[in-house]
Structures are given as structure tokens and as C-alpha cells.
């Protein structure tokens, strides 16, 4: 089970306070089973924690899925999220991954309006962000972009003038940097 949740010795963070809210990046290994996502989402709803994003997918072992959850909250909420998640039968490991120790990526598909010939500036933008065109038609281009949240935001700003038709944006996925694993 988890490491943080069982550390009984450390002084606990302050109970409900007005301390600064910050993004909390959480990695979790859960059973790859129907209903697990519901249980996790319900826990956040029941405890009044906000989920900014949640990404889940199967791991190399098909028995388990890995979730990356981004939530907003102070130290108290961070501590409680970890402890409450740890109590779920379907959750095997859960940890807060500090920003400086995280490799984080967000994946995004952006459908952009094009008229007639391809705009060179648009192509440059797509190339600058390391994005790929995965679909095109006489009226549209769909770009696949991967980056951190800020860089994806910048891409969207950059292509907005051309006319963004649709965006499909996944939440953050995170691993520890280096050899460390969850």
C-alpha cells in the first residue's frame, strides 16, 4: 500500500484552513476493473474535492490501470486525498508527485479551419510545437499536440486566429523523473 498514508509519525497538515490552493498531481495504481473509475470519482465528489483532470489507462500488467489525477487544494486536501484514496479496495498505490520530480505531458487534438491552400504560418506553428497533422480535408487540419499544459495553451492561442473548430484535450499524464516508480 501507500507510503504517505501510513506515515503516522509526521505532524499532520492543518485541518481545513485557508492555506494556498495549488495543483496536486497524483499518480495511482488501481485494479483494471469496471467500476473503479466510478469509485474514485465518487470519492472526490463525496469529500468535496475538485478534479481538474483524470487520465486512466491500463499498465504493462493488464490487471492494473494507472491513473493520473490533477486536483486543486491546499496541504490539507492533498493529505486527505492520498489517505482516502488509499482506503479504496481497488487502489493499490497512490502518491503525490511533486512538480520538480514529475515528467508531465498532456495530449491534445485540435481541429483548425483552413481555407483553400495551406497557410505556411500555420504549418510553421504546427512544426514549432512538434505537433503532427493526423487528418486534413479541404476545410480543416487536425493537429496532434503533446506538451505540458502551458505549452498546449500557447499552441491554442497561436492557432486561434485561423479558427479553432474543435479541441479534444486529455488531462495530465505523469511519471516520476529518473528511475523512480510509483
Amino acid at each position: 500500500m501507500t507510503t504517505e498514508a501510513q506515515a503516522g509519525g509526521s505532524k499532520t497538515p492543518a485541518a481545513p484552513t485557508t492555506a494556498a490552493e495549488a495543483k496536486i498531481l497524483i499518480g495511482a495504481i488501481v485494479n483494471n476493473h469496471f467500476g473503479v473509475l466510478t469509485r474514485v470519482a465518487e470519492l472526490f465528489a463525496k469529500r468535496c474535492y475538485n478534479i481538474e483532470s483524470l487520465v486512466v489507462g491500463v499498465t504493462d500488467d493488464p490487471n492494473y490501470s494507472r491513473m493520473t489525477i490533477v486536483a486543486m487544494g491546499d496541504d490539507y486536501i492533498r493529505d486527505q486525498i492520498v489517505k482516502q484514496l488509499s482506503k479504496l479496495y481497488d487502489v493499490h498505490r497512490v502518491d503525490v508527485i511533486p512538480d520538480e520530480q514529475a515528467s508531465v505531458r498532456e495530449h491534445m487534438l485540435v481541429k483548425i479551419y483552413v481555407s483553400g491552400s495551406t497557410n505556411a504560418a500555420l504549418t510553421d506553428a504546427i512544426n514549432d510545437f512538434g505537433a503532427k497533422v493526423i487528418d486534413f480535408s479541404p476545410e480543416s487540419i487536425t493537429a496532434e499536440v503533446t506538451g505540458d499544459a502551458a505549452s498546449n495553451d500557447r499552441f491554442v492561442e497561436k492557432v486561434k486566429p485561423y479558427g479553432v473548430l474543435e479541441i479534444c484535450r486529455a488531462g495530465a499524464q505523469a511519471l516520476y523523473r529518473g528511475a523512480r516508480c510509483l
Partner: protein
Amino acid sequence: MEPPHAPPASMTGAEAIVRSLIAQGVEVVFGYPGGSVLDLYDELYRSSDQIRHVLTAHEQGAAHAADGYARATGRVGVVIATSGPGATNLVTGIATAYLDSVPLVAITGNVITPLLGKDSFQEVDIIGITIPVTKHSFIVRSADEVSEVLAEAFKIAASGRPGPVLIDVPKDVQASRTTASIAAPRALVAAPLPLEDDLAQAAAMLADSKRPYLYCGGGVSCAGASDELLRLADAHDAVIGCSMMGLAALPSSHPRNLGMTGMHGREASILAHARADLVVAVGARFSDRATGNKAAYVKDTRFLHIDIDAAEVGKNIAVDHALVGDLKGSLSALASRAVATRRAAWQDEVADMRAKEAAHAHNAGRLAARSVIESVRRRTEDGTVVATDVGQHQMWVAQDYPFEAPRTHLTSGGLGTMGYGLGAAIGGCLGNHARRTVLFTGDGSFAMNLNEMATAVSLGVPLVICIFNNGALGMVRQWQTLFFSGRYSNTVLDRKTDFVALARAFGANGRRVDGPDDLEPALDEAFASTGPFVVDCAIPTDDWVLPMIPPGGTVADMLTEKPQEMEMTR
């Protein structure tokens, strides 16, 4: 471990359920049949010599009975209901068990697998409905899984901080055949012991304290840690108070035990709790009812939290140090590290607090209820199981009934479920070898689930039911008097219900108590009765539960008597 039953060549899922229950050591289950559990009930019929099924009047009563059985015995309670409304009728009972950490396994039938998700007749997503109030839940998709799932469910329900687990079994899974063998009971997850450094720090906090107060909760009974707690208190010359859930964990006659703390606690316990320089919470969770105003509560006090559930540490208040793990082991380790210390100044202060409490005893506005409680207590034993419903009578019992033994007090502490008591008393009675059992209830609470009188009469349980009948929803009325200028919106029960006639209609007996002279003869008759007996006690409509700390208030706001102007309105 050898499976208790040799695997037969083939059996149905329903048979696997019943055999698994027997293998888990279950002797009695509570429930109500229906279309989606016909197979299961057929197997219960066949196995009735090995496992007893108690039919209640309503699934909610069955859930409370299984809960009461679990609280009285410490074993996992089992309740069975059919799909749809049968399952939803369990929800309040499951939530009650969840909030009070009671080990419960609820088995529901569901429609056949091909009909799942089609809004079929009597179909409901009971797993989805109960996710917030269960430790875990399973839907069984194949008869092959039945026994493993049951074994796992019992393990989850009873391990760590106990709680309810739901198993949903579609009708076709009950009917289909399996060759899987019956799983043996699983070892519970062992609770860890605290690390040496953490113990040392906790011991130092206790040693440094001048005014230690041990605030004990339901976890003490769960862990069977009463003796260890008393040893620790003795070693540090500490006083002990408790949440309502912690009440029966320690003998109320013990000189260190000040009784319940919190909103409606005993005055000395409340005062000592507020005056302590170190509060050691043991298997308790700093509920709002126990702490009152959190900011004032934590001021100038250090906190040591000992609990099996890591998530409780820091949840309701920030604490200075915590020991997460097995209570019994933690307390024992702490006690053995203690250097026996006398704290005479603290004990003197506490003696003054007790004197204050005694001085207020006569204007505490509960004389009628107290005399009933005292008269009942003269007829009960230390081991008598006492259930309550929810409201003023519940608080009067918590304050005044001298509980002496763990697992004798069945009450809905966390959820505050009116209508809990009768079902719980029936379950508790069966769990306690069908010995004499007492239910204290109110005219409001009793009316909620009195259909279970039918169950009590069928079983012939020796149940004495004391109704504190004030013709009102007394606790809400008390708040309306205090905070809503006496506008008694829907709390006057002008119902004309004759509870004695009602008892007779159910096949039980009863007596009305209109005044002090009626009480003793009525109780004599009640306690001589072999079956359920209703004692309908008229009490004043405006007796209050005192002391009272208003919600969000502090010890400085404590009311120990009714304000004069409110006394005038009587």
C-alpha cells in the same frame, strides 16, 4: 487451511452463497425474500438446520438487526434483500453501519444478467447507490466467483476499521452451477504497530502533560482495548471521557471515567476535555458533536491521535502527533513505557468539575427520563444489551445509563438514524443468546419502524421497550425553543397513537405509565414478561437534554439549565 466442506461435484450459485456463509461461521442472517433471491431463499430453506434466517417486517429493519447483531457480538452481521426496492430499503441501514464502523455484509439479488441495465422490473444499480456508504462492493458475474467473493467480503468488512460490504448477485448467477470449492475464512489484514520513534514521542507527550484527558471512541470496543486504555490512564493519572460511540468501552463506574463529552456530554467530562493540556484521542474521530467550535477546541491544547485509520489523522483537526495502527498494541506499548506519575493538582481540578456537575444534576431538566432509566437499570445486568433510537432519549441514556461492559450499547451515533433501535435491539438480543434486552426509544423514533414489533413477537424475544413519550419530536423541539423562538414547526405529535393497544395488536403486551406511581409496577411486569413488552412512559413535553453546547459553540456557551424566560413558557 482445509476447506470446511468438501467440494461437491457441482452446486448452484445460491448454494455456494449459503455454504460460504456457513463456512464463514455465520449462524444467523436477517432478511426479506423477493423475486431476485428466490434461489437463495430456497437454499436457506434447505440449510435451515445449519443457518438461521430471521424474517423481518421490512428490509431496513433487517439491516438494523444485522447491525445490532454485529455490534453486540463483534462478528460480521449479514443481511439479505431482493433487488430494486428490497435493496434500496437497506440503504439507511448500510449507511448507519458505515458511519459507526460496523462490520456488515449485505447480499442483494439482482435481475438476470441479460436484463441488467435495461430498467427491468425491480432493477436498481444498488452498487452505484451504495458506493459512498460501503467499504467496498462486488457484483458477482459468475457462480464460480461466489465463494471467493464472499470470503473476501467478510475479510474486508472485519479488517482494519470495520464497515459494510455489499454483494450484488444477479438471479441467473444464483441459479447457474459451479464446481468451484467453498473458500475458507480469510485471515484479517493485520493492523501495523507504531514505530519505536513514534511511540517514544507519544510517550514523551504523555509524560510532559499536566492535565491529560483520554478521549475514547468506538474504536476502543472494536479493538477490545478497554483494559489497555485503563492501564494507560492509570499510569499517567489521566482522566477518561468518551464520544457516544465510546460509551460502553469502559465501565462507567470506573473512577477515571467522566462519561460522554461533547454537545450533550456530562458536565465534568466536557469541562475536563476543555481544560486538558493534552487530549489523547483513542479510536475517536473528533466529530463536530464531540468538539464543538474547532478553532476554540484546538487552542492551547496538544493532541495525540491513536487510530487504526490513517485518514482520520488530521481530517477533522490538526494533531501534534499520531500513532496509526492497532489500538490494543499501541496502548499497551505506551502503557508499558510509562513511568507511573501522580497528578494531584489535575485530579483536584477534576473533582471540582464533578462537584459542579452534581450541583447541576437537579436542574438538568431530565428528571422524568432519569427516573425511568434508573428504575430500568435496577432490573438489568451489566451484560444487558441496551439499544436506543435517536433524539433526546438517546442523549439521556448516554448521559445517565451506567454502561459497564463493551458491546452493550447499540445506538446510531454517526448517522443518527431514527428508527434504528427496534431492529438493532432484536439483532442485539439474538446476538446475546436471546437474553433480556432493553430498547429506549421516543414516540417519534418508535413510530418510524415499529413494524418490527411483528418480528419481535414472532421471535418471542424478551425485549423491554421503554418509550419516552412526550408527544413531540423532542430534540428538534428543544432546538426550536432555543433557536427558532418556539415556533414548533411539525414537531408536535398530536397523533392519539395508543402504543399499549398497538403492542397488543402485534401480539405483545404493554403498560402505560402516566405518573411516578405507575412506573415500578409496569417495569416489574415488563421484566417478568417472556416476550416483547412496551412500557409507554409519559414524560413532560419540555424536558431538555442538558448540558448542551450549541452547535459551533464552546464550553463557555454550555447551558446547564434552561434559560429562565424559556422555563416561563412551559
